[in-house]
């Protein structure tokens, strides 16, 4: 999947992946896509909840080994 920016949130724990994501999205323009890689197992539910509440669209959420990858499109 194409993306405009990537955020490495590996090794970070709640709530840092979400806070860094929010901060990175703030620097982006509407319609752009952010790729986030995380290792916090709680982030799967958290990113879905973040997208639902902020209106930024979670294009995809996938798991590979102990890493989670999210693609979020800025509102």
């Amino acid at each position, binding site marked *: 999947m194409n993306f405009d920016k990537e955020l490495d949130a590996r090794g*970070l724990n709640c709530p840092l992946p*979400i806070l860094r994501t929010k901060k990175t999205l703030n620097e982006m323009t509407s319609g752009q896509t952010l790729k986030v890689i995380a290792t916090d197992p709680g982030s799967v539910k958290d990113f879905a909840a973040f997208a639902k509440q*902020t209106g930024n669209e979670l294009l995809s959420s996938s798991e590979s080994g102990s890493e989670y990858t999210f693609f979020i499109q800025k509102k």
Partner: protein
Amino acid sequence: MDDQKKLAIIATKGTLDWAYPPFILASTAAALGYETQIFFTFYGLQMLRKDLSGLKVSPLGNPGMPMKMPFGPKWFKDINWNIPNAVQSIVPGYESLATALMKQTIKNNGVATIPELRELCQEAEVKFIACQMTVELFGFEHSDFIDGVEYGGAATFFEFAGESDICLFI
């Protein structure tokens, strides 16, 4: 934005462990678009001090806190050092030791530090209000606290809390 959700928190505890919930919830709420305010009163004022090294954690009288070592092989880290209260209370520096071990565990787990979370709250425009009555009660000066703190009383808290969607006492 009048339809913006609001979160009001009262922070009353002054230990390292209890400094987490207000700052985690406030920073996350701000990231989700909430207008957020924390009212710091009594021991909660410790969280606003410029110097946060006074925030400690005590396993004494806290049966819910596991005492595990943040270093060594896994079998060693898994041991829960169940030390009787009577022993904890007479060992000088036990609290400082427990705090140092907790800080190392926090670091090992990629959990943010309290200064880091507090700064993230401020960046996200979480409003900090210190209870003026307890500031005076405990003999603090405004200069003991970080910049950007407002000072007020219970009525100030209700002005925001009365309009809030979520209100937490921590």
